[in-house]
């Protein structure tokens, strides 16, 4: 009778282990690196450009979002997720907007530069969460979070001091080109006023 009891306990343990293995095997959790199929990349568009990138830096930031999952009887569950983003931030000038006025007698060229423009390109993004299924169901997409991180990065990089630095670099870049064309450069705020 006692032996029979032990056999039942052993059976229950074995069945429990098998069930645990089955559940673990069948349900996939976690965020392992998923393999991507080989596909062709296609060129959609080729556009001419005329701009000079004068400086750049890599920046990274994140934003956090939390949510409470309310259950009728079970205690409420807290969920959180983080969206990270790495961007290459740069300043550029549009060459179409640069104005020149050459004085051949002195081999001097007066240049009015346009404002430097902030540009950022995304290098990588990563979404981390405590429950992928919950966020897949309750957050239709991560676009709003990504926009928020982009805003944070822009706020950090696009400062008046960085802009001034970029303006100096833009002057250096244009001077470099003009010197190679045989001209000395003077930067002015308004070409009209100089003519007067």
């Amino acid at each position: 009778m006692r032996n029979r009891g032990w056999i039942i306990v052993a059976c229950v343990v074995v069945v429990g282990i098998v069930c645990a293995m089955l559940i673990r095997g069948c349900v996939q959790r976690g965020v392992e690196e998923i393999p991507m199929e080989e596909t062709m990349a296609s060129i959609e568009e080729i556009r001419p450009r005329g701009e000079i990138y004068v400086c750049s830096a890599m920046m990274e930031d994140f934003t956090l979002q939390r949510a409470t999952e309310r259950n009728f009887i079970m205690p409420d569950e807290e969920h959180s997720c983080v969206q990270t983003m790495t961007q290459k931030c740069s300043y550029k000038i549009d060459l179409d907007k640069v104005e020149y006025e050459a004085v051949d007698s002195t081999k001097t060229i007066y240049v009015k530069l346009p404002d430097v423009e902030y540009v950022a390109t995304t290098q990588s993004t990563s979404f981390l969460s405590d429950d992928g299924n919950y966020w897949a169901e309750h957050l239709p997409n991560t676009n709003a979070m990504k926009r928020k991180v982009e805003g944070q990065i822009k706020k950090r990089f696009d400062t008046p001091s960085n802009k001034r630095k970029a303006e100096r670099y833009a002057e250096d870049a244009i001077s470099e080109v003009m010197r190679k064309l045989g001209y000395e450069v003077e930067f002015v705020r308004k070409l009209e006023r100089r003519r007067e």
Partner: protein
Amino acid sequence: MLATLLGVTSCNSCGTAGEEDVPKVESVILSRIKQKADLVTTEVKVRKLAIYDSSKHEKFELKDPRTWKYGERKCIVPVDVTIKYGYDLRDLTIDDVKLTDDSTAVVILLPEPKVIDSGYEAKVEEGAVVRMSSGMRDKISHEEVDQLMVQAYKAVMKEDFSAMVNRDIENNAKVVFEAIVRGIGMKNVEVIVQSKSLGLKI
């Protein structure tokens, strides 16, 4: 038992996803601001479909419970990559810009073109992403969509498109230099651009 079941199945949709105030953390600067003088002449837009199909990578093995996954998962994400090509103007020396003896042409010897900037559009409309999961498998998560996009971007950058658009990069450089030369008043001067590696040929 009923209470537990009710508790578990009660209301997933009752959850409210909301933002919360988080302590202010400033962006991490991964590299110092580098001074550049990179002329961009050509922008190339590339599209790649990032496809994940679990059935092609997972094989059932009786000995390995991790492979006893019932169901399949598939995901397709279109990734738009922008690559800007051009030249580092600091590679252009004073000897690389020559005015012909009769002053009718400026010859510019250009260095090898390079990628000046690149990146991908991280925000994708929900309707453009295909997510499928069957059986007991998890939904395709935002984590995985982001992973696929990064992999697609890296794959595009590994491919060398510069050879395919080399002609455009050089022709567009000619247009840019022509605009500069005209802008500074050299109206009747022809602009000739040549690759520095080929040497000066007039």
